[in-house]
């Protein structure tokens, strides 16, 4: 029985079980993707490089959600809140305290890890729709929190905060956009490798045990509470780094940048990329960046409707997202080799 059929058969579970090895790409594919990511900017306009940077940091945010939902089975519609915290921490440190941007990101990550870990505590008692509502509430509340008067001194309140884009260091002959792209690429790759290893580690197995059956996992001696909050923390931390990168790339943060719409986009990115399949995150990010533009090109007045129809098409054709495409591709390749 093929992996794809397995996946379909298990479709009734909230989050399907994904075999560990199916979570990453093969070595050959990885090298090709990496080479492409390294080479494309050399031949592209600054605007395309900017879009690719967007692709990377949004991919990172989708990956973070994937660790939480695909890894530990917890559902979140509140990722935009952690993304916002990361972006604001970075922006405030850079602009108000003159901290170097490269230093801001780990700080944003740590702050968000803390926030996620704390939020994971009450969320522990909630699951399914209840967790969805709690995280949804967090996402709705975040823009209002950012507007608060007593934070205005740092955050700029409703007006937001303009961020200065860093130049390439050591006098490297590249544009700000290209430098930021490679910088983002390095951060993204590091976090991707970390995530893959995390999910393969003891902690990762614990996450998946909880995802597949919480009660059985606890019977086997997995500290469910610890690992669930840990998953929240890690996911929030990575999301925070992604938010920080976005603040630098967009050069601006404001409460309107981090509404519930962003959380919904990240969620869509995860579904389209394939829940639990880490490389799919980048496909998901591409979907949420480019498909709205495509829809707009088809019809301005009905861009929302066109986007909805395209989304429906995708989930009809591949309900398991890009992962399904990858699995089918693998099978075809396997058959070809046998012949």
């Amino acid at each position, binding site marked *: 029985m093929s992996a794809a059929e397995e996946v379909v058969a298990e479709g009734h579970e909230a*989050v399907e079980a994904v075999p560990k090895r199916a979570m990453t790409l093969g070595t050959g594919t990885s090298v090709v993707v990496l080479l492409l990511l390294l080479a494309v900017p050399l031949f592209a306009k600054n605007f395309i490089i900017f879009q690719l940077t967007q692709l990377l940091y949004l991919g990172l945010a989708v990956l973070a959600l994937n660790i939480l939902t695909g890894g530990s089975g917890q559902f979140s519609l509140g990722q935009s809140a952690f993304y916002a915290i990361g972006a604001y921490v970075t922006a405030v440190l850079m602009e108000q305290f003159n901290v170097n941007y490269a230093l801001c990101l780990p700080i944003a990550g740590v702050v968000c890890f803390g926030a996620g870990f704390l939020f994971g505590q009450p969320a522990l008692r909630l699951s399914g729709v209840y967790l969805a*509502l709690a995280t*949804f*509430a967090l996402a709705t509340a975040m823009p209002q929190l950012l*507007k608060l008067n007593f934070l205005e001194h740092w955050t700029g309140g409703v007006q937001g905060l303009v961020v200065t884009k860093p130049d390439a260091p050591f006098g490297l002959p590249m544009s700000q956009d290209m430098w930021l792209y490679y910088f983002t690429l390095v951060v993204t790759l590091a976090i991707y490798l970390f995530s893959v290893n995390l999910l393969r580690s003891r902690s990762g197995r614990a996450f998946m045990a909880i995802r597949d059956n919480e009660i059985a996992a606890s*019977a086997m001696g997995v500290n469910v509470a610890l690992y669930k909050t840990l998953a929240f923390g890690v996911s929030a931390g990575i999301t925070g780094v992604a938010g920080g990168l976005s603040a630098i790339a967009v050069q601006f943060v404001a409460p309107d940048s981090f509404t519930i719409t962003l959380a919904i986009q990240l969620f869509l990115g995860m579904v389209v990329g394939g829940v639990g399949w880490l490389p799919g995150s980048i496909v998901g990010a591409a979907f949420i960046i480019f498909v709205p533009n495509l829809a707009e090109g088809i019809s301005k007045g009905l861009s929302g*409707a066109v986007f909805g129809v395209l*989304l429906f098409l995708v*989930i009809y054709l591949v*309900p398991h997202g890009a992962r399904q495409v990858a699995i089918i591709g693998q099978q075809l390749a396997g058959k070809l080799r046998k012949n």
Partner: protein
Amino acid sequence: MELFTNQILAGIATGAIYACMALAVVMIYQAIDHLNFAQGEMAMFSTFISWQLMQWGVPYWGAFVITLVFSFVGGIAIERILFKPLAKAPVLTNVAGFIALFAIINSSAGLIWDFTIKQYPTPFGSAPFLGSQLISTHQAGMIGVTVLLLIGLYFFFQYTRIGLAMRAAASLPESARLVGINTSWMIALGWGMAAAIGSIAGMLIAPVVFLEPNMMGGVLIYGFAAAVLGGLSSPFGAVVGGFLVGIFENLAGTYIPGVGNELKLPIALALIISVLVVKPAGLFGRHIVKRV
């Protein structure tokens, strides 16, 4: 003290809006076992249909009934055409489908009817109710309709064959099929009823918030919150939850010094989450025992 009573009354008045919506949320949850993010938009679209009918000269109650039928049939059609093919897909994929539906309906309504706000009539009038200017006859009527709907639903789910079959199909689909219930059509029926109840909610809410394509955006968050607070398995809980959220929110906005007004929604939501932490199935929901 007067301010306090006033805020409670005002809270009940807005709570009626949330209660209406929460009832529709619970209805769909009973049928399909998850929340439908496009529910508010479906209600908005139905309300526009009734408005359009009235523009064409159909009297209020005529438009009301036609809209009800339209929504019921429309709800079933949406399920049959769009979501039945996804029945075997993972739940999260279904949620993505709801989001797609949301985008489609919102954008189409904007194109057809524009984004300017429209006045929407009320059958109850807007005079002060029983001498209190805080609750108008419309809001009293709204509360009345909500209670009637609630009673109707209670009898439907407790005492009618089809209501019982629907509950069985939602909670234990396998066993329901074994006793001969057509679970697939029960789901479609659930969609139809949820759409119809949503359309009533929309038609009652529109005179207060005005009719426009984004009118349900805010209402839906509160509707979800109310339904979850009351317990998703309990229509009664949803209605109580709606009023509680309305009152909470107003009191927080009035009495919590400093940030109360700016943060009344976050505070209300935080309170709900605290309640859920203590009672994970909501105030009136049945607790489901998990098995391995």
